[in-house]
């Protein structure tokens, strides 16, 4: 079944190199291009200079955190509350990182640090779909994936800051749905690649419920974090009783 995993062609043998990582990232480019563009527009509107926008997208490199940073900075919030909020927004990476890390134990620590530092929702989604059938991941492949996503993100932010004023309503073209559609694609491929249809559906349903409840009563980012913990625990429990 591996032949049809992705729309892009994969070499029959040893296709786990840097270039394959770059290619495997391409389907996610559109989704993050549109969200990065939007981030650039918001950052510019919040009074940030192009230099600041480049610096922010290259160093912070986190979608939702950049939106929050721009909004809170413009509203004159104190530094400590901006940093605290962003910590919670990005805490979900801890769980994704923990899920990916065991596949790269064979690499030296500095390479692990490099791979971890570029982890995002999308590279996680692509990587875990690829890794779940393996014991060891290829560091070069992961770096190709990460670097493509990274450059795309920085360029998208700059493009949003520079050209944002010319594009008045990207919603009319449905571009704001690119990110949702990408998550839908990543979910479905994950789900089909595993042989746990029933348990996965229970996990998915619990995650949906918990993330919505968390978002309504606490905040959206805390909602995602709580949802992952609850849903994964339910998954372990369900498998035990099967």
């Amino acid at each position: 079944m591996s032949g049809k995993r992705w729309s892009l062609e994969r070499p029959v043998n040893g296709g786990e190199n840097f270039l394959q990582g770059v290619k495997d990232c391409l389907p996610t480019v559109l989704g993050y291009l549109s969200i990065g563009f939007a981030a650039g527009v918001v950052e510019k509107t919040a009074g940030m200079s192009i230099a600041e926008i480049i610096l922010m997208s290259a160093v912070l490199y986190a979608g939702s955190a950049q939106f929050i940073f721009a909004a809170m900075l413009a509203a004159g919030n104190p530094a400590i509350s901006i940093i605290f909020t962003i910590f919670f927004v990005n805490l979900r990476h801890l769980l994704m990182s923990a899920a990916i890390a065991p596949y790269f134990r064979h690499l030296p620590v500095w390479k692990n640090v490099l791979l971890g530092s570029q982890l995002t929702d999308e590279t996680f989604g692509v990587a875990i779909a690829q890794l779940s059938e393996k014991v060891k991941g290829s560091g070069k492949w992961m770096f190709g994936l990460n670097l493509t996503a990274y450059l795309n993100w920085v360029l998208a932010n700059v493009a949003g800051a520079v050209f944002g004023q010319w594009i008045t309503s990207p919603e009319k073209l449905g571009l704001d749905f690119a990110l949702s559609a990408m998550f839908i694609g990543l979910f479905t491929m994950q789900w089909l690649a595993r042989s746990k249809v029933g348990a996965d559906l229970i996990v998915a349903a619990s995650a949906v419920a918990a993330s919505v409840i968390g978002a309504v009563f606490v905040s959206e980012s805390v909602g995602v974090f709580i949802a992952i913990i609850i849903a994964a625990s339910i998954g372990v429990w369900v498998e035990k009783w099967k």
Partner: protein
Amino acid sequence: MEVRWQFLWVLIGASIVTLIPRVLPFIVLSRIRLPDWGLRWLNHVPIAVMSALIAQELLVTDGSFSPSPEGMIAALPAFAVAYKTRSLLATVVTGVVAMMLARYALAVLP
């Protein structure tokens, strides 16, 4: 093209607290091996992450439960194409086009 000092300090702080959760598991788990139950737990994380993110995209707006009708409509063909083709690119393109059509239809219909 200037960078303000105040901005720079906040950015450094925000980047450090973002980097730690991303990198820490990579450092720790490259040295110690997780127990079996830990690995089984982490095995459910991908499905949980993607479901939680999709739910918030489609069902939550500004911290309140408000499913977007056009989002729900556009999600259906996106799921169908993802299931049928297993292609991320085809799914994204389908979703975007479906969203465009759904918005147009909901705006034109009475």
